């Protein structure tokens, strides 16, 4: 780790409230007495907000971010401003993807994880009737296909906690023949044995509720629910809340948008 990244890491810990009081005091005295501390702190703040919006923070970091960092009204304003700017820039900057260069080094781990995820989904789909795949979803962490006959089920796999700028959310198109959207929710909470799943539209409230038990696989679990397509409207964005039963504690949040039909 470089000296610079070590410094940034400490400031991130400070911003997430993860330091002891003595460590916190030392950093704050630096903040009051050196020229370098304030820009370092600003860097760390910016990095945290960007990673939060990217969905790149770990579950624990995300929790600290929401429970501690966002206690500050100033930090909440910064998050709002960053989200606004990102949304506008993303819409302006959308362009055809360039050809990928070969993945090397650190990306190999990400590739391995992605392959494992795809293999896992293929394994699950192999248990169902054969699927003539037609890609209809775009966006991070999404895999999808539409089952033509006889089930006519659209499949969407989601990872939790992705608070994306509009336009970069996971999207899915539901064709006229699709009767059900099957959501496969990647579960991070190892204690989850049964959950209530609530699908709500950002502008129309709850649209569907159901219960499910996660299926365990090596290193994780998946919660599968079938949502009637008639409950979902083209052009709307949805939030999926997973509430642990019986205590109702929120275990995960997922987001997706249905393309206009």
């Amino acid at each position, binding site marked *: 780790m470089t000296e610079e990244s070590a410094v940034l890491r400490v400031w991130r810990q400070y911003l997430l409230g993860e330091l002891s009081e003595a460590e916190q005091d030392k950093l704050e005295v630096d903040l009051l007495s050196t020229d370098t501390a304030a820009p370092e702190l600003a860097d760390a703040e910016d990095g945290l907000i*960007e990673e939060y919006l990217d969905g790149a923070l770990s579950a624990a970091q995300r929790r600290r971010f929401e429970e501690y960092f966002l206690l500050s009204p100033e930090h909440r304003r910064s998050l709002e401003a960053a989200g606004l700017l990102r949304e506008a820039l993303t819409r302006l900057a959308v362009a055809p993807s360039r050809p990928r260069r070969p993945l090397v080094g650190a990306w190999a781990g990400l590739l391995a994880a992605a392959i494992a995820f795809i293999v896992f989904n293929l394994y699950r789909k192999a248990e169902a009737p054969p699927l003539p795949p037609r890609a209809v979803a775009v966006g991070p962490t999404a895999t999808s296909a539409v089952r033509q006959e006889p089930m006519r089920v659209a499949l969407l796999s989601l990872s939790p906690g992705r608070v*994306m700028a509009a336009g*970069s959310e996971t999207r899915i198109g539901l064709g006229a023949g699709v009767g059900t959207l099957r959501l496969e929710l990647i579960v991070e909470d190892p204690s989850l044995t049964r959950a209530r799943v609530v699908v709500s539209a*950002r502008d129309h409230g709850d649209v569907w509720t159901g219960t499910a038990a996660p299926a365990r696989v090596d290193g994780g679990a998946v919660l599968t629910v079938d949502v009637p397509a008639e409950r979902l409207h083209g052009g709307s964005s949805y939030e999926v809340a997973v509430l642990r039963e019986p205590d109702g504690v929120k275990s995960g949040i997922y987001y997706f948008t249905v393309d206009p039909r």
Partner: protein
Amino acid sequence: VTPEGFQSFLAWLSPDPDRAAHRYNEIRGGLMKMFVCRGCDRPEELADEALDRVIRKVEVVAPGYEGNPAAYVHGVAKNVFLEYLRTRRRSLEGGAVELETALRRASAPTGNTELERRHACLERCLAGLAADDRDLILRYYREAGWAKIEERQIMADETSASRSALRKRTQRIRERLKICLTGCLEGGGTA
């Protein structure tokens, strides 16, 4: 706070008046950041309260004090913070609603009219950037998900910059855009 007390405080920070003024601003700015990071909703007021307390006592404290004056100011500021915590009537429910609003605003889609207004403002603000800054920031946001991460690595490689340096540069550009965009939107989209 008396003018004499204030002058004594500046003299304690540095015998050079210019340097002392710089140090004063540095301490005040640092205090505000500290209160922000501790979740306070009145950081400027609390910073001034801490400084006022130090200034009122400076003629007693400074002659016998050894070490960095900022450390003393920090100790006073922590007391101000503790008093703030005791007196603050934080509505947990209200705080939760505010937080939820911030999270939604950071991610929620907006109506067409609002989007058009934002786009118009952003295009104006982008036009005010140097061409290479404009290209950089648009490219920085072009991809999504992992593709974006890969794209940013490619950009860093192409410019022989570290990802950290690239992020800092885009941070500065974003900050300029944020100020311009906020001003434009508050001005009805005509800035």
